[in-house]
C-alpha cells in the first residue's frame, strides 16, 4: 500500500483565495476557524485537483474568485516515494487543462484516479435520505476513480442515452420512425450498460461488507445495516429490456427504463434506512458508508487516498469526537485533512492519541500555522 501526501497547495483566484500557497506535513492536518472563513475551500481545492470537479454541485464558473476570469490550483505531492506536481488551469467556459509535472493531459479522464481523494461532508446524509440519484452518483464517483474502463463506459452510456432520447423526442415531433436507428444506438449501449451494471453489483456487495463492520465499530449499536442493488439489468439484458419497453418509450418520447433509474437500497435491520433512521443512526451510517468508500478505493488502487473531512464533528461531544478519531486511526489512513470550527477539540484528541498532526488557523482566507508546544 503506497501513500499520497500533499506537501504544498497553491490556489489562485479559487473561491475566496486570491493567491496563496500553503505547506502541509504528514498525518493529520487540522484546519480550524469560524464559519465562512474559507476552510472548506481548501478541501474542495484538493478534491478538484483529484477529480477535476468540485465536491459540491457547483459549476466551474461558480468556483472563480469574484471578478476574475481564470483559476489555477497546484499541488506538490509525494506519491510512491516520488515527487509530482499536479496543476489545474481553468478558464470557465473555454479551457480546462490538467497537468502532471507540467505535461498537459490530452483528456481529463486520464488524470482521474492519479491523485485519489475521498471527501466526507455534512451534506453526505443526502446519500441516504435523498433521491436515488444521490446514491447512483455515490457509486459512479467511487467506481470512476478506481476504474478507467468504468469511466469510459459511463460517459459513452450517458452520451448514447442523450442521443436515444433526442431521437425518441424527434419522433413525437413527427419525424418518420426508423427502427434501425434505435437498434444502432442500442447495440452500442448494450456493452456499456452491461459493464456498468456488473461493476456496480460487485462494488455494492464489497461495500456493504465494509459498511457492516464500520457501523458496528462506530455506533456500537445492535442494529445491522444492509442493502441491495436494484438494477434495470438484474433480470434481463439491455436488448430484452429495450424490447419490453419499446412501445412505452415511443409513446413517452424518452427512455423509461435503464441504469439511469437504478437504486441502491440501504437498510437498518431490514427497514429502509431512508425513512426509519434517527439523526444519530443517519450520521453513523453515512460515516460508515463513506469510510467504506475510502477503504474500497484504497484496496482496489493499492494506494491510500487523501481523506478530507469537512466539518463532520459538528454537534458531537468530545467523547464522540475521540471515538471517531480512534476509529479512523485504526483504518490505515494516510494524510487526513480535517476542518473544524472548534479550535481545540480535534488537536486535543489527537494529542491524547499521540498522533502526528499540524494545526492551521484560517481567518478571512488567510492560513497561518498554529505552533504547538
Amino acid at each position, binding site marked *: 500500500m503506497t501513500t499520497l501526501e500533499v506537501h504544498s497547495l497553491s490556489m489562485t483566484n479559487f473561491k475566496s483565495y486570491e493567491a496563496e500557497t500553503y505547506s502541509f506535513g504528514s498525518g493529520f492536518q487540522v484546519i480550524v476557524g469560524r464559519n465562512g472563513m474559507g476552510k472548506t475551500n481548501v478541501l474542495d481545492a484538493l478534491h478538484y485537483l483529484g477529480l477535476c470537479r468540485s465536491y459540491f454541485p457547483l459549476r466551474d464558473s461558480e468556483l472563480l474568485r469574484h471578478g476574475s476570469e481564470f483559476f489555477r490550483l497546484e499541488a506538490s505531492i509525494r506519491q510512491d516515494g516520488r515527487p509530482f506536481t499536479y496543476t489545474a488551469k481553468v478558464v470557465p467556459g473555454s479551457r480546462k487543462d490538467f497537468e502532471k509535472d507540467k505535461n498537459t493531459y490530452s483528456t481529463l479522464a486520464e488524470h482521474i484516479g492519479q491523485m485519489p481523494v475521498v471527501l466526507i461532508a455534512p451534506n453526505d446524509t443526502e446519500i441516504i435520505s435523498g433521491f436515488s440519484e444521490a446514491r447512483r452518483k455515490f457509486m459512479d464517483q467511487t467506481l470512476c476513480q478506481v476504474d478507467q474502463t468504468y469511466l469510459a463506459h459511463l460517459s459513452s452510456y450517458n452520451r448514447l442515452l442523450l442521443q436515444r432520447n433526442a431521437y425518441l423526442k*424527434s419522433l413525437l415531433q413527427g419525424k418518420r420512425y426508423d427502427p434501425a436507428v434505435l437498434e*444502432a444506438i442500442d447495440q*452500442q449501449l448494450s456493452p456499456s450498460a452491461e459493464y456498468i451494471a456488473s461493476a456496480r453489483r460487485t462494488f455494492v456487495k464489497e461495500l456493504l461488507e465494509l459498511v457492516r463492520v464500520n457501523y458496528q465499530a462506530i455506533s456500537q449499536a445492535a442494529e445491522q445495516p444492509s442493502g441491495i442493488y436494484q438494477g434495470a439489468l438484474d433480470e434481463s439484458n439491455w436488448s430484452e429490456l429495450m424490447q419490453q419497453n419499446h412501445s412505452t418509450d415511443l409513446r413517452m418520447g424518452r427512455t423509461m427504463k435503464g441504469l439511469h433509474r437504478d437504486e441502491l437500497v440501504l437498510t437498518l435491520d431490514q427497514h429502509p434506512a431512508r425513512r426509519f433512521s434517527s439523526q444519530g443512526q443517519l450520521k453513523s451510517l453515512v460515516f460508515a458508508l463513506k469510510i467504506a468508500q475510502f477503504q474500497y478505493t484504497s484496496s482496489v488502487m493499492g494506494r491510500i487516498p487523501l481523506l478530507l473531512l469537512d466539518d463532520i464533528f459538528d454537534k458531537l461531544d468530545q467523547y464522540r469526537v475521540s471515538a471517531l478519531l480512534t476509529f479512523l486511526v485504526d483504518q490505515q489512513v494516510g494524510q487526513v485533512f480535517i476542518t473544524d470550527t472548534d479550535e481545540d477539540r480535534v488537536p486535543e484528541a489527537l494529542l491524547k492519541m499521540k498522533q502526528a498532526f499540524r494545526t492551521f488557523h484560517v481567518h478571512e482566507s488567510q492560513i497561518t500555522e498554529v505552533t504547538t508546544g
Partner: protein
Amino acid sequence: MMEEFRKKDLICGLAGYFYGMNHSSRLLQEAVEAFSTLPGIGRKTALRLALHLLKQDAEQVDHLGDAIKRFRRDIRFCQTCFNLADGPQCAICADTHRNRKTICVVESVRDVMAIEETQQYRGLYHVLGGVINPLDGIGPEQLHIDSLVGRIRSDQPEEIIMAISPTIEGETTIYYISRLMRDLPVRISTIARGVAFGGELEYADEITLGRSIMSRIPYATNPD
C-alpha cells in the same frame, strides 16, 4: 478619477480605430467586414488583406473576385458520390482507371481529400454529408444513405470501406449502414483503429490501446 476616465476614452477610441469603426473610407470598411466573416480571420487580418489588394494590379484582383464568384455559383455535387464536382459527375467517378469494385464511405468532402492525399486508395467514394446525430437533428434521411444503397444494388461493388471517425455517432452510423446492407452481397470493412504510426505505446490512451490489442493483426515477415 478624471484621469482614469480620460485613459479609458483614449483606449476605446484606439480600439474603435483598429476594429473598424472609423475607417476613412466606407469601401475599405465594407471590404474589411466582408473578409472578417471568413473563419479564422479577425479584423486586423481582414484589414491587412484589404490593404494588400490595393497594392495588386486591378486585373489580378478581378481574377480573384471572379474565381470566388464562379466557385460559389458553378460548383456542383457529384450525382453519384456527392463529392465536389464541376459537372454532374466528379473527376474521381469519371476516371475510368479507378477500381469500381470498392466504395469508400466518408463523412465529408474533406475526408475524400485526406484519403486521396495518401495515394493509397484507387477505388471510388461516397460522401454521406455527416453522421447520424439526433441531438443535432440529423437522422439517416438527412444523409446520403439511400443513394448509397441504390448504388450498391445497381453497381454491385465487392467491398464497402467505412472510413468514418470512431466516435459514438460515427459508430452508430456504421452500424446503421451495415444493417441496411445485411442482405446485400457486399463485403463491409472499417478502417483499422489503433496506435498511431510513429507513436509510442505508453502515450496511447487506454481505450485505443485496449482496442488495438483486441483487434490485433497477423504479422507478415514479407509484407507486399
